[in-house]
Structure formats: C-alpha cells, structure tokens
C-alpha cells in the first residue's frame, strides 16, 4: 500500500490553531492522517481498531468489559486501569513509566485523553482529525473547542530502551538548564 505523505498545509494548521489557541503558541507536529477509525481515548490506550467510549456497541465504540458504560471520570480511570495504569500526581517525564492525562469539561465529564511519548512530549488524536505531538497542556483550556482541564494523570511501567534513555537524559539536561519550553517569542 503506497504511503501517502503527511502534507497538512497552513490552512489546515490554522483551523487546528483556531480551535486550540495554545497550540499556535507552541511547537506541535502532525503525526498521522485524518481517520474516524479510532478516537483520542483509543489512541491514548494504544488501540486503533475502534474508538473507545462508553457508548452502544453498535455505534462501533469499544469499551473494556467490566467497566460501567457511563461517561464519568471514574469510569475512564477504571477503563485505563484495565491496561495497568494507576492514578498518580506528577505529569513529569519519568524513565520507567509511561503516562496518560485525562481531560474533563466544566461539568466534570471526560472529553479527551493524551499519552506521553517516549521522548517526553505528548500525543493526542484530535476527534476524527489527525494525531499530533504536542506539549503537555497545549490542548487544555475552555476557549473555542479546547478539551477543558486535565483532571487526572495515570502511569504504568514502561519498557526501557536506549532511545527512551537518551530522550530522558536530554530532557533532564534541558530541565536543569531551564530550556524545556518551546514557546515562541
């Protein structure tokens, strides 16, 4: 199958940045093509077969067995718990753990999930649009179509490989030199 290059021009990026104003002030990369085969929750869970949501199975949505089919933060924490994630307080880049962040709206209902990449940055699927790699809180906020606030961080043990160690070391150096921010002037 031919590989289609990821060409998302200025117009497309402007549309994303209008919905998520903080993205426009930080560095982010488009990492996939648009698809409605999966959503942000599935992407954070590492699945791309179906969207994850506590909806009717005939809608195409997957939801782990044994977890209540209700759209509450507790149900989402339990859903990620089936993958070995445990709630934690810190969103920092840890060598031995991979993390996810759960977003909720003003009513406390889950809206989005992001996963920490092996390089310490975060990856998100934007609805039925593309996957992007972004900074931790670039999608948070209550303006436009932003996903609300980050309500819960969860972590599970990660496989440690040389690439992850290299990124972690680089991250530590940047943090100690206070050059971790990619914000544009």
């Amino acid at each position: 199958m031919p590989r289609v290059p990821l060409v998302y021009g200025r117009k497309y990026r402007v549309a994303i940045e209008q919905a998520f104003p903080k993205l426009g002030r930080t560095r982010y990369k488009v990492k996939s093509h648009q698809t409605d085969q999966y959503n942000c929750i599935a992407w954070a869970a590492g699945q791309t077969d179906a969207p994850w949501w506590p909806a009717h199975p005939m809608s195409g949505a997957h939801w782990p067995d044994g977890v209540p089919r209700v759209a509450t933060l507790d149900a989402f924490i339990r859903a990620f718990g089936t993958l070995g994630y445990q709630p934690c307080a810190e969103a920092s880049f840890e060598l031995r753990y991979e993390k996810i962040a759960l977003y909720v709206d003003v009513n406390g209902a889950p809206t989005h999930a992001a996963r920490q990449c092996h390089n310490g940055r975060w990856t998100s699927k934007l609805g039925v649009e593309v996957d992007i790699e972004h900074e931790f809180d670039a999608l948070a906020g209550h303006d436009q179509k932003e996903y609300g606030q980050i309500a819960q961080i969860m972590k599970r043990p990660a496989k440690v490989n040389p690439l992850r160690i290299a990124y972690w070391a680089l991250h530590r150096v940047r943090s100690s030199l206070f050059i971790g921010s990619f914000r544009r002037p």
Partner: protein
Amino acid sequence: MMSTASMKRVVVPAQESGSIVPSLRTLRSSGAAAITVARIAAITPTIMYRYYARTVTNRDFLEQREPAIPVRDEFLRLAVDLDTETRFISDVNKIIHHSAYQQIIGLGHEVVPFLLRDLDQHPGRWLWALHSITGANPVPSSALGNVKKMARAWSEWGKQKGII
C-alpha cells in the same frame, strides 16, 4: 361579414334569455365537471394509500434503487455540517446525538445507499445510523469493537439486499 360558423357561437344561452331549461352547452359543461369530481373522488383513496405505503411502511424501499437527488443533496449538506461541528469531538454519544446526525437518520431508508457507499471513506461514522434506520444487525459479535470489520459486515448486508 361574419361567417355562418361564427354566427352560431354567439347564440345567447337559455338562462340569459329567461328560460328555466338549461341549454345543451350548460348541461355538457356541468356533466364534465361532475365526471372530473367523480374521477378525483375515485382516485383519492389510491393516492392516499400509496402515500401511506411509502411514508409509513416503506414497502417500496427495496425497489427504489436510485433515490431521489434531493436526498443525496440533503445528506451531503448534513454530512458537511456534522464534519465541521464535530471534527474535534471524541465523544461518540455527542456525535450520534448531534442534530445533523439525527437529521440524517431522519432521512430514512432513502439515505441508506449513501451511508453504505460512504463506509469506504468513513468506516466508523455511519454504523449507528445504519442500525438505527434499518433495525438490522448484520455485525457478528466477533466483529464488535472493530470498526473496519463492522463496516465490511454492513457492506456485505447492503450487497445481499441489493441496495448497493
């Protein structure tokens, strides 16, 4: 100078001339009107039954291979609305309860061929609409939770029914 034929047409009707007996011309026009009314009265139940059959029972759905163009236009308009307004939303319930999605479901069986054809491009989008409109369940339980397999099952169903 008027011809004989023209002169015959300007004969004064019986009523205007004071006679209570209707002229032949009046009788003929009244008879034609009565026949028209009778014909309309006779055909009305047929029209009403056909309308009922089409709108309520959808009995002629499977014979209707090429839906009317306005349904296609309406579907495309609503699909674009849905795209624009839900493109960054991951909440499946929010998407299928969106007004544009509900209006697409409201288009009924005529929109099913378009939904089935669009499964190639958007395999995950119309699964609920298809289930909701047709009431069918062609997806085996082993395919639940896998959008591509579910879309394939619906396409097969559409081919078996002769819809696509």
